[in-house]
């Protein structure tokens, strides 16, 4: 500290006595209350670090005497909202899904809850927009083709028990044989050409004709005489514009020779009944529901 205050000649204002390259700093004193406010914030900060989580330690930060935690807050929030929704959730579990009324609070609740359930559990395969992934055989849930039926209670059954899984004895189950062991190379080609001819004009009519006989003998039991499929058996309709794995000759050949074995977990064992019903209502509302 300097011994005596210096005064700047030009302005007549006291300087702080600090000089840089001959330039001196004028002293413009801050108000005293500002200083006290500054001290107050320091005291406040000390109190704050005692009251709230703050000091980093080896295993996480100090917890603070108030025991405040964002995780606990979120948990409390979720609990509070679940308590608020308890009546609706109970009503949903008790309801007959087929009679949920359009515009009713219950249906609104079910679809919004279902959306959350879908995003968390289903979107990994079916996509966040529920459009599926054809290359992997994850079905599109927006269209009007349903392997196992598109009524809301049929959807709920599929969600609850899953498809071709070992964990739930009531799972939807069907299995197409791998025809590589049954058909000759030429027969496979003929059947593929027949199936291909159902939806495409650009085909070999003679070969398809041969294939149609093979189809009636080997495939119609499940897929039907007209290849319209059978939702009771999970047999897809081969005559419509929708293909689970793809409708070109190569993909069809692959499917016929090696079969497919798409699986879905039994969600009834993983999520609550209310969640199962909610997500069913949500999927049903996406555009394909029957």
């Amino acid at each position, binding site marked *: 500290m300097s011994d005596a205050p210096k005064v700047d000649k030009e302005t007549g204002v006291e300087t702080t006595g600090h000089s840089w390259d001959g330039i001196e700093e004028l002293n413009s004193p801050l108000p005293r209350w*500002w200083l006290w406010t500054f001290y107050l914030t320091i005291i406040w900060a000390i109190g704050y670090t005692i009251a709230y989580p703050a000091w980093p330690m080896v295993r996480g930060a100090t917890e603070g005497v108030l025991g405040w935690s964002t995780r606990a807050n979120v948990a409390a929030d979720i609990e509070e909202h679940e308590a608020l929704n308890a009546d609706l959730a109970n009503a949903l579990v008790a309801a007959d899904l087929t009679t949920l009324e359009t515009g009713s609070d219950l249906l609104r609740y079910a679809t919004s809850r279902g959306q959350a359930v879908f995003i968390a559990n289903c979107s990994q395969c079916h996509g966040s927009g529920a459009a599926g992934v054809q290359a992997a055989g994850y079905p599109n849930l927006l269209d009007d083709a349903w392997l196992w039926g598109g009524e809301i209670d049929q959807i709920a059954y599929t969600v609850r028990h899953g498809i071709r899984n070992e964990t739930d004895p009531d799972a939807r189950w069907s299995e197409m044989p791998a025809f590589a062991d049954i058909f000759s190379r030429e027969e496979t080609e003929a059947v593929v050409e027949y199936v291909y001819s159902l939806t495409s004009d650009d085909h070999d009519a003679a070969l398809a004709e041969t294939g149609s006989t093979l189809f009636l003998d080997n495939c119609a039991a499940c897929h039907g005489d007209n290849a319209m499929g059978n939702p009771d058996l999970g047999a897809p309709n081969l005559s419509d514009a929708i293909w689970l794995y793809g409708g070109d000759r190569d993909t069809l050949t692959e499917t016929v020779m090696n079969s497919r074995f798409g699986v879905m977990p039994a969600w009834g064992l993983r999520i609550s009944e209310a969640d199962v019903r909610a997500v069913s209502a949500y999927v049903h509302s996406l*555009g394909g529901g029957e």
Partner: protein
Amino acid sequence: MTGTPDAPKLYAAREPIFPRRVKGKFRTLKWWIMLVTLGIYYLTPWIRWDRGPQLPDQAVLIDLANRRFYFFWIEIWPHEFYFVAGLLIMAGLGLFLFTAALGRVWCGYTCPQTVWTDLFILVERWIEGDRNARVRLHHAKWDARKWSLRLTKWIVWLLIAVATGGAWVFYFTDAPALAMDLVQFSAPPVAYVTIGILTATTFIFGGFMREQVCIYMCPWPRIQAAMMDSDTITVAYRDWRGEPRAKGRKRRDMAEEAERIAAEEAARGRGAAVYRATPYPGQRTVEEAPKTPTLAEAAGPGDCIDCMACVNVCPMGIDIRDGQQMECITCALCIDACDEVMEKVGKPRGLIDYLALSDEPRERAGEPPRPIWQHVFRLRTLIYTAIWSAVGIGLLYALFIRTDIELTVAPVRNPTYVTQSDGSIRNIYDIRLRNKAGSDRQFRMSLTSDEILRIELEGEQTRVVTVPANSTYLQRVYVTARDQDPASDADVTDLRFWVEDLESGERASKASTFNGTGESDD
């Protein structure tokens, strides 16, 4: 902090300010502005406005819980927040305009800090007396009298502060109901906390911080200075008329010297030069102005009698005669104080006055200042006015073309389209319908397009939906193009959704697009 006593002080204690009472036209104007602004603030929440049974009947209400803002006949929904943004832009531009034209009028007359401080000083004066009494009380010992005066003052301040905080919360919920709850201690805690915080800030800022808020806490003084120029009308001291200031014996000596010079000059036959104490009159006595000062006039004292009236009335504790300074909020009380004195000593008013600094050379030369309108109407202010009006007209236009029905269309683009089993192509749209009326309404939805497209509503057999009163309704809509329709394999097809109120026939529409497979040959 431990340096020698001579070390420079980096922190200064606040110098207490004891503004003296003053009378005059600006003081009167300020009383009226205080009355009106405080009246608006305290009474607005109590105005009622009938909107029907399902909507609140408070004229001005910020309903945060339901995301609605009511202002008399106007109702703002969250998606119309641009009205608020527009008003804020207008407020900002308005501040630019007023500052460019009239300096810190906002600070001096209407800023809440100024108005409440003014009110608190008024209370202080009623209880503790005018300036001299307050200075004495300040230095007095803390005896019973001082305690009783101070406590009385603080209690009245506190009551005003509580009323201020109390009025604030009424803007956010039904005022009469909340008032009952507040009295019965059953109002929500957030109401009490808000009142508590605003009570504390009002009490501290209005009672103790006062000018410190303006000088150290408020950003406006810094910003506003950048918006002023030499044509800005602001409070200033006519130093060319007032200086050299003098009082008492010094003033008498100077006047005698001037008389002597005048007599000498008269003796030399230079005409009857008479010393006049007002050589360069202000704008109010222009006709008598001589072009150049005589020797006698140069030797005589200026009009300023150094009575310190302008300093004593200043709520900011500054001396306006030092020129423009950041602390000055242009409250004009020094004008009133000085005019009063000039009147008493028989000189023209306006030694301290509203004036533009660009007039200084003219006035120094004894010419009259240019008329006020020439200062106010200049390119800068006209541009501000133009932008301000453009925003205002835009907002009014937007307000008047608002309809009671509104829809927003959010095309679902995940996936872009869905192929149905019959080969038709379907697009999905999430349409939000807003019913701003106070009763349930039925809307029929339809679409128009150059191509053949079919519309269906999720969960509805018909194309009619019922939207509850004062709410937004989300409806999923499907639009389908059959396999043979051009839209199914076109890239993009334009379409327009229509919504019609079945009762009133009022319609609204929104354009959107339909995505096909993009596989058409042409």
